[in-house]
């Protein structure tokens, strides 16, 4: 319990620091909403209009930085992210909700697949040292993970979508299928996600294979594994209950972090596959100098990462009794 309280402490402090950075960062950008408004109206906008639009956008250029900061913190706490400049008059929360499910669905699934698959390969590889899983796959995937994944994406599109025509090369679903909870729709979404998910899995699995394998090897050298063998336990029991369960502990937080980064890491994949996700919005927000959307996305991503880390902590505490009491 004390362990979790300590983690909670960390959660709050880090969130605060990140949120504050979020506040500062966009304000470092040149220009600002006023400039953006002016260009949007081709310079033919009078100051009164600018003022009225700023009010509508929740921009308070008359407040000093501290006042802005305080009201910003309040808004973040309430989950009120204001109105998007780039999608004006839409609210930021509305804009985000448009894209969030897609990002979560695609990259979340792909990350989970990569983690599970990579971890399993790592476990079996380390168990049979010198076998194919151990001597071939890790180096191969480690090399592949060094490939820029937008490039891998481009190639997969060229090969599997454009040339072979097996998969669609863009979008999260086809425009002919109405979005509802039905088999045609779901299968359509899955069909559209195969290539981008494949790209993510292909380029990220190497890391999981390697770390899991190395942890496993370290764990397999432990005395309690020797002991388990001496006790005559079955192979699977030793491999999972004794070795893998201990070896996976250090990876959980890493996994949580990457799960949290889903939203941001998806950016390049989303762009290449024209996927309707948050990453695309983020790039747009930056290009549009859409403060509020940018801040909200930053906040969301940071929050998600922290939440995932917290979840991983809980999981770690559950799996590893030592952490529960560690002072």
């Amino acid at each position, binding site marked *: 319990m004390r362990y979790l309280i300590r983690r909670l402490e960390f959660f709050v402090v880090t969130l605060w620091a990140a949120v504050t*950075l979020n506040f500062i960062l966009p304000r470092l950008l040149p220009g600002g909403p006023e400039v953006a408004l002016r260009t949007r109206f081709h310079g033919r906008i009078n100051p009164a209009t600018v003022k009225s639009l700023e009010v509508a956008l929740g921009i308070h250029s008359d407040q000093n930085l501290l006042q802005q900061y305080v009201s910003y913190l309040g808004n973040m706490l309430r989950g009120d992210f204001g109105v998007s400049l780039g999608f004006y008059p839409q609210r930021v929360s509305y804009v985000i909700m448009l894209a969030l499910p897609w990002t979560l669905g695609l990259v979340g699934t792909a990350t989970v697949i990569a983690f599970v698959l990579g971890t399993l390969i790592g476990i079996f590889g380390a168990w049979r040292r010198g076998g194919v899983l151990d001597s071939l796959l890790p180096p191969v995937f480690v090399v592949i993970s060094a490939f820029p994944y937008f*490039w891998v994406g481009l190639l997969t599109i060229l090969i599997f979508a454009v040339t072979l025509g097996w998969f669609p090369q863009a979008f999260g679903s086809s425009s002919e299928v109405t979005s509802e909870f039905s088999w045609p729709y779901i299968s359509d979404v899955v069909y559209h996600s195969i290539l981008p998910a494949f790209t993510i899995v292909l380029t990220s699995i190497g890391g999981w294979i390697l770390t899991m394998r190395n942890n496993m090897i370290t764990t397999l050298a432990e005395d309690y594994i020797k002991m388990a063998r001496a006790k005559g336990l079955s192979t699977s029991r030793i491999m999972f209950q004794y070795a893998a369960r201990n070896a996976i502990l250090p990876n959980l937080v890493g996994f949580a972090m990457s799960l949290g980064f889903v939203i941001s890491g998806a950016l390049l994949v989303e762009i290449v596959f024209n996927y309707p996700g948050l990453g695309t919005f983020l790039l747009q927000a930056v290009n549009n100098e859409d403060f509020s959307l940018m801040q909200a996305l930053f906040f969301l991503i940071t929050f998600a990462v922290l939440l995932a880390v917290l979840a991983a902590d809980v999981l770690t505490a559950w799996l590893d009794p030592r952490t529960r009491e560690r002072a």
Partner: protein
Amino acid sequence: MGLDVRLIADQTAARADEVRPQAGALRLVGAALRHNRKALAGAIILGLFVVVAIIPGILAPYDPHAQIFDQTLPPSGAHLLGTTGNGQDIFSQLIWGTRESLAIAIVAGLMATLLSVLIGVSSAYLGGSGDHVLSLLTDVFLVLPTLPLMIVLAAYARGGGLAVLIVVIVITGWSYGARQLRSQALSLRHREFLDAARSRGERGFYIITAEILPTMTSLIVANFLGAALYAVLAAAGLQFIGLGNPSDMSWGTMLFWAENNGALNAGSPLWAIVPGLCIALLGAAFALLNYAFDEISNPALRPVRRRR
């Protein structure tokens, strides 16, 4: 130790705890090359690129920027890889692009490692509230979404060229290493040779630089390799989405141009494939070296010869 937060459990726990007799980064690398085929492969690739980066003028037949040829020519004797949609020689671009791509990887890798060492090790050594603050800083940077942060920073300094790109990569890339180094330094803190140094009256600065750092060589080298790999990919990604300086000549900007001119579909696929391949190769070189390095600093990870 109060708020001793461990955000990332040390994935290289084994390495972090071990302090083996090790003599200098150079000798380690030398050993790596002699005994490890993966390291050798990585080193050869890297070496090739280094040579190309040093003498591009001799290898490249044309000015990489000059838009003087017919557009979208297929590969031929005159243009080994054909020409771009803008009438430039792809091969010459590739050769000249090596220099900047490699420079980013190495400079950013070094700087990020330096920052990691500085912050990670001082954090561990200082302990107490100094550790608190530095750890928190590290964790915040770990949690902050890297790619978006990079995009914002790069957009901020739009078109600022190489230096900006490197700074952005360093700012976003140091934290992971710092955390690893901190945890290794922390485990070192309980090593008695540090207490021994303290009890004979050494100053803190000496202890950090002359007693702690040399024992961490292998982790620092590994960190550099990781940071360089990160720099390669990050720079390529940023340049690809147009946040580099498009008039620079590097593989990432080549990809940017290729993408914007639909190279893969518009008749000059090599324009996109080859620079991507080079990035992949450079990345792979660092990844292989890192992989091999892991095996060298932790013998348990070495491949085993199966007897039966």
